[in-house]
């Protein structure tokens, strides 16, 4: 049984039509999308802007209700769950967003931020809030002594680590990362990707990793869904998608990714190895 099953999900938004007096129109952001996520795996959803990848993520996180279709978690239909059922779902599914600063309350200390998911669930951590926050900070590679500081006192990469720590507070089974490393500089991005992979090895949860950057997706995922105009055009193993894409759009997307001249890259690596050996 899959951890998460998205079954024929469609999301329509009502928009104003062209012109002032035009009747309302509907826009289909996600069009009959289905996929499953197994425990412990990373499924990446890639696509360009407007492909519907973030809307899909929001539906999977129950931050949006689908127009039709169902969301099942651990065998239970949670599409329209409320109250205790929804709370149980939120205990298992957490989200990390793109912009760490806009998703962290600037007036709260880090301790308060990372323990907030517990507060909302009415859970008191064993050993006290402080010790719990410090342990979380250590897990994501931050100095635990800084838990009384405020978000503004951290760099972008550190702030994203705080967002990750908060997601882990409830020990989730699924973490949804919506462009979680897109705003970071490349060296910081590499560190945060490593952290995400290490945390998964340690705790065995699943990721849905939403990104527009195919090279990043290739580092972290086992399976990849490619979205275009609200539909999944191709879903397969990472190696199949990257080395043997079937869909025309997937091929176009892969061909468009800028590459470092491969010959220069090879030469640099062999020079680097020679330097290390000497």
């Amino acid at each position: 049984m899959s951890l998460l099953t998205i079954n024929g999900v469609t999301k329509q938004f009502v928009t104003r039509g062209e012109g002032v007096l035009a009747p309302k129109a509907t826009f289909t952001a996600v069009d009959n999308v289905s996929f499953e996520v197994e425990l412990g795996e990373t499924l990446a959803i890639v696509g360009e802007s407007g492909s519907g990848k973030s809307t899909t993520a929001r539906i999977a996180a129950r931050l949006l209700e689908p127009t039709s279709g169902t969301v099942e978690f651990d065998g239970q239909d949670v599409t329209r769950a409320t109250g205790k059922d929804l709370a149980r779902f939120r205990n298992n599914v957490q989200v990390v967003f793109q912009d760490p600063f806009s998703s962290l309350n600037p007036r709260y200390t880090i301790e308060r931020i990372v323990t907030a998911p517990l507060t909302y669930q009415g859970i008191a951590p064993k050993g006290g809030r402080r010790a719990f926050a410090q342990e979380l900070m250590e897990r994501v590679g931050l100095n635990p002594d800084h838990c009384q500081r405020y978000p503004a006192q951290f760099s972008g990469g550190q702030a994203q680590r705080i967002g990750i720590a908060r997601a882990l507070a409830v020990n989730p089974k699924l973490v949804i990362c919506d462009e979680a490393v897109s705003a970071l500089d490349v060296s910081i991005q590499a560190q945060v990707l490593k952290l995400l992979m290490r945390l998964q090895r340690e705790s065995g949860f699943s990721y849905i990793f939403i990104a527009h950057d195919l090279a990043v997706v290739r580092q972290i995922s086992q399976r990849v869904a490619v979205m275009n105009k609200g539909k999944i055009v191709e879903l397969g193993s990472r190696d199949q998608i990257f080395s043997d894409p079937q869909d025309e759009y997937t091929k176009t997307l892969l061909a468009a990714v800028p590459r470092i001249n491969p010959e220069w890259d090879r030469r640099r690596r062999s020079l680097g190895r020679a330097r290390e050996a000497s």
Partner: protein
Amino acid sequence: MTADLFVVEDLTVTLPTGRGPVDVVKNVSFTVGRDDTLGIVGESGSGKSMTALAVLGLLPRGAETSGSIRLEGKELLGRSERELQSIRGNAISMVFQDPLSSLNPYYTVGLQIEEMYRAHRGGSRRDARKVAIEALERVHIPDAGRRIDHYPHQFSGGQRQRIMIAMALCCSPSLLIADEPTTALDVTVQAQILELMAELQSTTGTGMIFITHDLAVISSIAKRVLVMCAGDPVEYGTAEQVFSDPHHDYTRTLLDAVPRIDDEVAS
């Protein structure tokens, strides 16, 4: 060798801050030739955009610059605002990251290109309109004669960036400075814009400074590369040298950090 089109020597930019003056660009030197593309690459805070703004005389108030910036042998540092006005958009033009914030939403794109052209070259509105239509055709906006009367919001993000490029090139500048021109674009659109810029350069011979944080983009468009880190120029050489045999540890670290799409995934 003929004299370089554009020469920057020992450029230092100092910004006043609450904690005293800070050198955000330190002793940067480079040259750009005709038909040449220099890529400036660095992470946030590296000083790459400040270098571009210094060249254009667009630094924030209170900034101090020293060194030398010469276009076709003429010193640009220390020029009056009026003189700089006549250079910007004319001999040196620029394309920025976000076309929507560079275009005025209340005016048609045609009017904006015409205004810019006439400010530098004068002439009749009719002539300027002809130039604007040609400029839009050069960047492959279909049906340019009709689209010229459309407003910025009626174009897609990629088309808007094409319009910015058309505007930047309509006075036939000697030097084009592009600061993260493809960063906000989807990858398929980015590929088209990069192709367009390379094509236009080969037909016009404009010297180009291409600023980005994306090493793969630099690799595909620049002939020479300047790597910056915290205001310092850490590496400067041909693209081939910088990418295949970087001398500086920072460049190596940066190149190692770039996720690759083709070869083996590092574990």
